[in-house]
């Protein structure tokens, strides 16, 4: 494990020096995540956990294993207003583009175990969520979520984030944000259209379903 961390460090510095960008090394990502950048961006750890597990019960999202590109896109969106959030927007605005890339690489490589202790949900709700996830609802033009988010909700890098093991509260909040026009800027408006086709019961069912799937076991344990 130590070896792989060292390797990652070298790989990162190699990439940054080849592209000629100022060398913000992997180290910088971990410093921002655990201590903040000292210029207004508080430590991500406080709300997302050091390993990126999030705090599911209050809807602070899991970041572990998300693609770097997706994380950067979201930080950009929080900074320029495509996504607005009282806690996240100021944090994102305080990060430079290089810092966003560095902290994104840190969480892409992070791995966090599933959060235990989710309240049980009735079978019918889970079954309904599973059908939407695997088959979709083509009678209203809705593809299966899994076609874009991966067969088990593990995500399809770089553009399609994982849903498996994500906070239920967060999943619901995002789907509702799209339905209400509060989250925008998704590529081709794919999610805007998907969310517009879901009713309240379907949002609840699919959020309950994905929150209880095991998160992808990839990346590095911290």
């Amino acid at each position, binding site marked *: 494990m130590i070896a792989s961390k060292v390797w990652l460090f070298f790989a990162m510095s190699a990439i940054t020096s080849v592209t000629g960008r100022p060398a913000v090394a992997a180290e910088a990502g971990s410093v921002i995540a655990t201590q903040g950048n000292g210029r207004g961006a508080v430590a991500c750890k406080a709300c997302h956990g050091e390993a990126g597990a999030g705090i599911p019960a209050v809807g602070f999202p899991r970041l572990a294993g998300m693609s770097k590109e997706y994380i950067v896109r979201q930080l950009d969106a929080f900074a320029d207003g495509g996504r607005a959030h009282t806690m996240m927007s100021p944090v994102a605005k305080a990060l430079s583009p290089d810092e966003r890339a560095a902290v994104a690489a840190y969480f892409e490589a992070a791995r966090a175990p599933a959060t235990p202790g989710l309240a049980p949900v009735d079978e019918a709700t889970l079954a309904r969520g599973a059908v939407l996830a695997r*088959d*979709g609802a*083509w*009678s*209203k*033009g*809705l*593809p299966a979520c899994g*076609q*874009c988010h*991966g*067969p088990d909700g*593990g*995500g*399809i*890098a770089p*553009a399609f984030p994982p849903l498996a093991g994500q906070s239920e509260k967060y999943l619901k909040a995002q789907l509702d944000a799209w339905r209400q*026009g509060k989250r925008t800027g998704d*590529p*081709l*408006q*794919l999610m*805007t*259209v*998907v969310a*517009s*086709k879901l009713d309240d019961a379907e949002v609840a069912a699919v959020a309950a379903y994905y929150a209880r799937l095991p998160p*992808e076991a*990839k990346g590095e344990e911290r």
Partner: protein
Amino acid sequence: MTAAKRAHSILFAAVASLSVAGLAVAGAAWADPSGEQSAFTPPSGAEIPKGGFGEMVALGRDIFTDTSKHAGAFVGNDLNCSNCHLDKGRLAGAAPLWAAYVAYPAFRKKNQRVNTFEERLQGCFRYSMNGKAPPLGDTTLIALQAYAYWLAKGAPTGVDMNGRGYPAPKKPERLDLARGGEIYAQKCALCHGADGAGLKAADGSVAFPPLWGPRSYNWGAGMSVITNAAGFIKANMPLGLGGTLSDEDAWNVAAFVDSHERPQDPRFEGSVAETRKAHHDNPLDLYGTEIGGVTLGENSPPSGPQPK
């Protein structure tokens, strides 16, 4: 359904869909607003009966949705039948199996004779799947027939059902490959890749299928004719946004997709020019034509499954 009626329902779907946040959201591209001859609804997956017949139906469905896993010996690319026949072969406007089943036996120009449904299925493996035809009577074909038969339960026979095939949108005067390339970069590359090779999920499974190159459909496949591709794309792509491209954009991007190299036509016998004359004599088929100084077909990867 007449062409005029088709056009009307597509137009209607486009207008009706402008409601959500100003976005064109087409639902099922084939919802027929007149309700006069509403599309047939096949039985739901949960209704597959128990017993021997039901098992055959379920196997057919699995072959259809995960073709290399369940019929690997006959497949030479990264596609599944359901990549082009959406919702497991159920979706109107995406050449659904229930509408096909009741239309055979039928005369086909492709081989100049009356084909049974089973023979039609053989062609899908040889061309769309760039594989080889399972022999008549093979379990693969029996299972697919059982599945299609079951989906068509209650459908009238011998009629051209509403929702069959890929309804071709209105063709513009001329096709513009450069414009097609721009649309591709804006609306397709996110999933199918800038190089058309598709995208894999972390576990190595194909998430977004390849549109050209050695792992896609070959030059004998229906989708390599621009008319079919335009119809498919207009009704179904980008995924989840079916019906949102203009007719012109659908044609141009279809032409762009079909202007790239793909596995050779399995009927090729050594001369691209001869093969074009015999099987591709159609201005909406670019095989054997010159694009950017290269003749399509001259540098095709070989057809059929390749040794790994």
